[in-house]
């Protein structure tokens, strides 16, 4: 004990830092789950693989076995993964000669170049609107949550990419490959127009190699930085050698395709370190040189065991929980990585193994994800079945989706523009990870959002979106019984139970307005259903439901999924 300790011992100075009791993690692994398959497990599966668990979706999947449900969620058709592109939801350029003017309102702009910077900015906004719309209107599968995962993994930013068309192309690569083969995925993203721009691949030439992509390819996209996230197994020399392999690629601004220029390519042999078995990638010349060397580079990288481990850890932190302790590493990550390699880097078998595992359904792994801003916003809209304009009203929808994107940005998640190539901090920054989403700035804003969705909603361009609390109540099996209504609402919205005393308090204070007899609520509900156009009856019911949901959504429990 030093002097200061001694002198200040009585003042609690230097007491052990506050630490929430270390929660019990679990030893369960990837063996198939054989436990109960009830509404609780269905909701858990849906909240993790989609945005929110909508009552109708819960009912749908409850009709299947667990294994069937997982297979259904992972079955995405080619048409589903290549949806119709974003459409023109903005006004024409003031330049009468701009080619964008030929694109009609409501038709896609992704095949027509523009020379107007202002139009380009509106296209980026249009892309973000479109993506938000895809998530809001997601089909009953994992595609949207997985696409966002890959965006966080192969992170790019629109202001660096520059051209809206390339930003769209980047997003299309993510969707198309989301459930495909990871090795092919890495090749396609390497040659993606957006990525070539984002990490300077287009500037990488034999004379002046640019190491940016060669580094991130290894540090972030494939090999990773090792379990402690600090000591990459590859060397600085490997970064430089990879950069040389990747020289010569460019983006053609007329055709919006990536092209290879043999004269810009470094055709010398590239020597890699002992980590890569001291591989030498033979330098090549000619039009196919870059492609062949890239194949060699990926073959070399994918021979290491680090790639599968890294990607499985990333998937785990996105879909299960951020804390990977020694047991999880041994019992979950390592077996998943083995599945990944055995299946030659096909993504689907890994996800199937994870989502059907006893580890995934382990009660200790339920409810412990802090909702990302997108999960919070999209999940809320879907769970409350918030009504948007009809699908043909693309302008009205664009306005609504833009509102939601603005909210997500204020909660610190701007799709298409994560903070850096590492993606969003909550998926890599130790020790807080997901907790970073919630802080003294974002927490009040998230609460303001749920309040406003219940009170006035958000209006933009004459279109309003808001929660109709009566609609939600009607989805519940027995809304006339205040006890069942509260229990069911808690069951669908939360992942943690509320104590009976809490529920009773809510019933009394809110649904019964301080009364003790349940029939006050039952009568009010019955009267409203019998005569929904009677504004007095409607207001009695609506006011109370609004207060109930406002309260529930402000509980910390509603931040978890």
């Amino acid at each position, binding site marked *: 004990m030093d002097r200061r300790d001694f002198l200040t011992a009585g003042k609690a100075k*230097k007491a052990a830092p506050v630490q929430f009791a270390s929660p019990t993690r679990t030893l369960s692994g990837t063996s198939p789950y054989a436990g109960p398959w009830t509404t609780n497990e269905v909701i858990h599966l849906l909240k993790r693989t989609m945005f929110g668990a909508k009552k109708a979706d819960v009912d749908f999947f409850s009709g299947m076995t667990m294994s069937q449900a997982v297979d259904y969620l992972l079955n995405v058709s080619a048409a589903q993964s290549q949806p119709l592109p974003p459409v023109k939801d903005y006004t024409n350029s003031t330049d009468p000669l701009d080619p964008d003017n030929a694109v009609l309102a409501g038709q896609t702009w992704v095949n027509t170049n523009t020379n107007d910077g202002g139009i380009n900015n509106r296209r980026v906004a249009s892309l973000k609107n479109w993506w938000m719309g895809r998530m809001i209107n997601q089909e009953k599968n994992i595609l949207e949550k997985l696409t966002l995962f890959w965006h966080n993994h192969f992170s790019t930013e629109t202001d660096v990419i520059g051209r809206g068309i390339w930003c769209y192309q980047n997003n299309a690569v993510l969707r198309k490959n989301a459930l495909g083969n990871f090795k092919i995925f890495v090749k396609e993203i390497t040659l993606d127009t957006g990525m070539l721009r984002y990490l*300077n691949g287009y500037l990488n030439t034999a004379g002046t190699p640019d190491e940016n992509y060669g*580094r991130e390819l290894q540090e972030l996209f494939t090999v990773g930085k090792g379990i402690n996230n600090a*000591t990459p197994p590859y060397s600085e020399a490997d970064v430089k050698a990879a950069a040389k392999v990747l020289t010569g690629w460019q983006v053609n601004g007329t055709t919006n395709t990536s092209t290879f220029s043999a004269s810009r390519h470094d055709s010398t042999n590239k020597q890699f370190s002992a980590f890569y078995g001291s591989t030498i990638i033979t330098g090549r010349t000619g039009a196919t040189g870059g492609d062949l060397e890239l194949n060699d580079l990926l073959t070399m990288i994918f021979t290491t065991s680090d790639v599968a481990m890294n990607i499985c850890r990333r998937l785990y932190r996105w879909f299960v*929980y951020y804390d990977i302790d020694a047991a999880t590493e041994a019992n979950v990550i390592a077996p998943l990585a083995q599945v990944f390699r055995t299946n030659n880097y096909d993504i689907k078998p890994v996800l199937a193994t994870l989502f059907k595992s006893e580890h995934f359904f382990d009660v200790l792994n339920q409810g412990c994800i802090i909702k990302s801003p997108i999960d919070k916003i999209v999940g809320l809209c879907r769970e409350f079945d918030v009504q948007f304009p009809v699908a043909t009203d693309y302008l009205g929808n664009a306005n609504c989706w833009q509102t939601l994107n603005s909210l997500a940005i204020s909660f610190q998640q701007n799709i298409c523009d994560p903070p850096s190539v590492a993606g969003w901090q909550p998926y890599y920054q130790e020790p807080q990870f997901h907790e970073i989403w919630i*802080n*003294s700035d974002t927490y009040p804003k998230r609460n303001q959002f749920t309040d406003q969705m219940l009170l006035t909603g958000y209006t933009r361009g004459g279109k309003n979106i808001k929660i109709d609390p009566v609609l939600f109540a009607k989805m519940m099996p027995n809304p006339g019984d205040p006890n069942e209504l509260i229990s069911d609402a808690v069951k669908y919205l939360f992942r943690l139970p509320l104590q009976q005393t809490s529920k009773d308090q*809510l019933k009394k204070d809110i649904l019964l307005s301080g009364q003790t007899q349940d029939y006050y609520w039952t009568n009010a509900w019955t009267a409203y259903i019998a005569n929904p156009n009677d504004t007095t009856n409607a207001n009695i019911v609506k006011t109370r439901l609004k207060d109930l949901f406002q309260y529930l959504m402000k509980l910390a429990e509603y931040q978890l999924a």
Partner: protein
Amino acid sequence: MKRRDFLRTTVPAAILPTVINGFSVKAFGAESPLVQLLGTTDTDHVLVIVQLNGGNDGLNTVIPIDGYANYFNARSNIALPENKILKLTDKTGLNPAMTGMKALYDEGKLGVVQAVGYPAPNFSHFRATDIWMSASASDEVLVNGWAGRYLNYEFPNFPVGYPNSDMPDPLGIQIGSTTSLTFQGPSVSTGMSISNPTSFYNLLNGIEDPAPNTPAGKELKYVRLVAKQTSQYTSVVKAAAERVTQQSPYPTPNSLADQLKIVARLVKGGLKTRVYMVQYGGFDTHSLQTTTTDTTVGNHANLLKNVSDAIKAFQDDLKFLGVEERVVGMTFSEFGRRIKSNSSVGTDHGAAAPVFLFGKNVVPAVLGNNPTIPANATVNDNIPMQYDFRSVYASLLENWLCVKNADLQQIMLKNFQSLNIINSAACKIVNPNTSGNSYLEIWGSPFTQSTTIKYKTDGGHTLLQIFDTMGRLIKTVLDTELSAGSYTYNFDSGALPAGVYYARLQNGATQQVKAMVKVR
């Protein structure tokens, strides 16, 4: 006046016996147990950390005029014209865009620390940022930040029992998005993030269900804690902001200025918050760092102009608000950039770079020598470190935030050199003045196999290291206590390849770096 000073000098001894059993207050100096028992270090000093994200090109920020020919040769496509450089001294000048900070230097409110880095520099943005924020060594992973450790040390047990009457305000405030690793304490973040102090939202108080001992329960408790914390600090931050109705002008649009304006407002508004952090990005200038026709304009010049104008306006506002004595700021970036430019008119990730200190109480000087630039710089050449960045932190903690030397090691986890960067009266600690002495000489360079390094020490801890141009630590010759005197060391280069190497001597607040060249 500080509370401790107040007690020591003005409180009549007669009122104290009930508190301390009859001992006269005069019996105790500043270091006395009594003063220690008064609790946390008492200071109204504020530290503002300005993060420049992306890796700022130090060589085009602080330009070595005395090595101009080599500087120009290494980066002719982005080199600044010699006659446009804003001279701080005969040898060193600023980028022409930095007129605001040049003015601050002339007013005696700007200090420059040359070539700040650490052994074995990391070239990855994320890892290098973590190293700077956590104040770790290159090969060491710390999951908490240096400001977080400091604040946790001063305010133990946070957040349990906070806010309280001694510390009613947030410990640290980050303007902007999420709180960074810098503020991460041993268990929770000591920082509060705000984007606009006038738009807080009131929380509802209500029923709380027990949290189970599961991961879900852990996260539930975390969210609840933030909820409580938010509502507790909302009112004090808002009230502080509302107390200030007039500030001097800031440039717009300038997001760094916007952030610093909030900081000035909260400091003046009376918050006891010790550390503020603001961030400004875009320094990853791989390409088109300047325009191709005029190297004094372009992306990097715009960035530096915004930084310079924002800090100048902030400093002017602090003076206007009458709180200039209380605030010192520092800038940092995760790394500097390569000496040699690339042909995309940019620079790739590099190593050491200058750090700026600003405020009325900084030592307004250029600390250290200009980096030595080789006559024919190659693509791998990096600027060797003269000062360890952790020495800058340690010196700010000791000489500005007045942390006791004995406590410093617990925050910095190691003993770091104390630098003469803060007015010595700030915490009444005297820094030795060792300017003008040569402590390090190379006898015989270029050399083929071995050379003799002559070094001098004033006694006490002495460190002699050899680095290569990548900043890798080749050898630690000595790291020990020595008595004052001159010594020599014969450096045998063994199987090392031909090239430039650097010897670095550190003794107390002094350090010097000399280049030596091995030839075949």
